[in-house]
Structures are given as C-alpha cells and as structure tokens.
C-alpha cells in the first residue's frame, strides 16, 4: 500500500531474505561503478583528478561529470562514453539476486510483473504547474501522490482544483506542515477544516466515531497523514534520482487574516474539493 523499491517488495512478500538482499546489494556496490570510478577504470582520468573535482564541488553546485568536463579532465564525448558504459554494465537488484542464487530467472520475471502491478497505482499523471520550477516534476508528483493518498488512505472522493499561485496562506481550523530538505526543498502544508480533521482521524484510527477523542489525538492523525504522504513522496523522488529528506511533522496556526508567504518563496495551492462540499488545500512553499 506504499511506494516501495523492488528489494523491499521481495522481502515483504517473503520471496527473499534480508540477508540475501544485503548480499545482492553488496554485489551491486562492487559491480556498479560510480561515474568517477568508471572513468578511472576506462583509463580516461586518474584518482587524483577525481579528488580535485570533488574539492572543487565544495564551492560549485555542479554534478561531478559536468565539473570534470569544465576542469578539462574529460571531453564531453568521453563523459557520454562513461555514462553509456555505466548504463550498459549496470546490475539491477533482481539480476544480482539471480546471480547469488536467491532467485531464479523465471521467478524474477514473475515478481517484476507483480511489483509493477503493485506500484502502478503510484504512477504519476500529468499535473500542470503555473510556474517554471527546476523541480517541477517533483512538485507535480507530490500533488499527484497526495491525491492518491486522499483516496487510498482517507477513502475520500474528491475533485482536484486548478493549481494556482497564492500570496498568503489562509487561516483554517488546522494546518499540518512538513519540511523537505535535500535536492528539492519545500514546506508541505495541508490545510483542513474541523470536519475534515475528523474524517482524517476516523480513517487513520480506523474508528467509526472520533467524537470523544482528545484534540491532541485528532491533530496527530492529520500530522500522521502528511507524514505518510511525504515519506512516500521521498520514496518516489529517490526512484527519480532526487534525494529528499523529511523532518517530523508540526502544526501551524495562521492568524485569522492569514499568513504571508515568506520572502524568497513561492506558494502553490492545490485545492482538493471533497465530495461532501468541503475543501482541503495542499500548499507547497517552494524556495525561489
């Protein structure tokens, strides 16, 4: 019921043991050379060249390959050759499990089909953002995954509204927030009414009624919902090659007049119109 990677799926299904998976990951680590290691293996550069490029990376926000070209250690053609060799020799986790004898080739194909079916529910649809952003695909995926979790975790029927840029964060009964750090930085905010907070609490606690629950528990269920969403966003992002770390969720209480968007940020609002007429709002505060 969550975004997974293939090795985790195989362990959860009891197809391989955690020990076998770790052995396969070790084999992958030995086989799958990093870009610099591959360039050295191909005799194009030396380990000292890589060290110099790594040192330069401290002050320059560039990928190693681009930096090696800029510093004259590799030509663009050589860089492309290295990347092609990396791709052609890449050992996938399934292949590694077959190589160590933990999985047969026939079973690998069967499990890959089952994995694709399990994860197909998390494949992103296209969502249009009103701004150009370097991590636009990540924010589109974040909204899409939020919609999917509203359906699958909260069991709420809804219609997504058009994404718009907002200049302030409106007051609501409750806002839960989580920060993304790493390759893509943003604050994820979910704004809900009192009624929607109770709907979320019923779904998370799996209870028919939450009328007697303390406010602390009701708030906690909304924070846990966004924790689940953001963790799964981080998982999906890692599959896209983007590292995103998350911090524990917090609650935010904007004043009645709303809260201005912090300087240096853009706020994208994704209204989520619930079937019963209520609306929750996903707001992404993205660093400019």
């Amino acid at each position, binding site marked *: 019921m969550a975004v997974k990677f293939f090795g985790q799926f195989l362990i959860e299904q009891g197809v391989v043991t955690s020990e076998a998976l770790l052995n396969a990951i070790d084999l992958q680590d030995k086989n799958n050379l990093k870009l610099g290691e591959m360039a050295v293996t191909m005799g194009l550069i030396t380990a000292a060249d890589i060290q110099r490029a790594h040192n330069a990376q401290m002050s320059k926000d560039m990928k190693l390959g681009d930096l090696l070209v800029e510093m004259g250690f590799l030509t663009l053609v050589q860089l492309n050759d290295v990347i092609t060799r990396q791709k052609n020799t890449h050992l996938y986790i399934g292949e590694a499990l077959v190589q160590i004898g933990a999985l047969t080739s026939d079973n690998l194909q069967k499990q890959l089909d089952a994995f694709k079916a399990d994860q197909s529910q998390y494949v992103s649809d296209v969502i249009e953002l009103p701004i150009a952003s370097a991590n636009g695909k990540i924010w589109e995926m974040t909204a899409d995954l939020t919609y999917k979790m509203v359906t699958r975790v909260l069991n709420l029927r809804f219609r997504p509204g058009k994404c718009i840029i907002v200049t302030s964060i409106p007051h609501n009964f409750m806002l839960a927030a989580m920060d993304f750090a790493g390759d893509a930085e943003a604050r994820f905010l979910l704004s809900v009414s009192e009624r929607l907070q109770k709907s979320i609490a019923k779904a998370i606690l799996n209870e028919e009624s939450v009328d007697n629950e303390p406010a602390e528990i009701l708030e906690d269920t909304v924070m846990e919902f966004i*924790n689940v*969403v953001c963790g799964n966003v981080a998982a999906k992002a890692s599959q896209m090659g983007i590292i995103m770390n998350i911090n524990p969720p917090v609650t935010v209480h904007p004043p009645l007049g709303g809260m201005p968007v912090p300087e240096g940020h853009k706020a994208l609002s994704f209204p989520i119109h619930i079937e019963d007429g209520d609306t929750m709002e996903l707001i992404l505060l993205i660093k400019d």
Partner: protein
Amino acid sequence: MKRVLVVDDSLSVARQLEKIISESGDFTCVGHAKNGAEAIKMNHTENPEIICMDMNMPGMDGLTALRTLSVMDKEVKVVMVTSLGGVGDKFTEALKLGAKNVISKPFEADNVLRILREL
C-alpha cells in the same frame, strides 16, 4: 505471548500498532516510547522481545536508536515501521544496522502481524 515495544512519536500510529498487537493473540504490547532515547530506556526496563520503531522522530531518531540497540542488546528483534520504507538508502541502512524488516506506512494489520510472526 511475545512482548512488543512500540516506538513512534505519533500517538495515532502508536495506538494503531498497540491495537493490532494486543488483538493478535500472539503478542502483548509492553509500552510506547516516543523517541529513540525513550526506546533504549524502555528496552532496559520492559525487556521486550520485539521492538516496532519509527525512523523519523524528533530527538533521537529510529536509526540512531537502532545503532545503539544493536550494540547493547543482541537479543531484541527490531522492525522499523516508517513512511520512509520506500527510500532505498534508508531501507538498506536499517537492514545493515540489524533491523529484521521494514514495514512501510501506510500499513495493514495483516502485513504487520505476518512480519512479526516470521521473526
């Protein structure tokens, strides 16, 4: 019945897990710690056989606590329960530190119990 300690900063997740564990008939919940430091203390006082622990908690996080527990107590079996289970690096790190399995949130009761029974 096997003794299980739940470690999660979320009150609602702790309640979900405690309910699943106590209604299983095979396990009993011996307590709830809200972060890694509390987990280490309660591992000493409650002597659980299994710990179900979140990764992402304020204060001492789950991986730091797992690292400590794997040195201090070779007997206790730790299962991570986390929304970050699908992040390959985190999953691998947890296994390397000695976690017996990783359960991704949102979880289902059947899946949680199947994994606990396999330990």
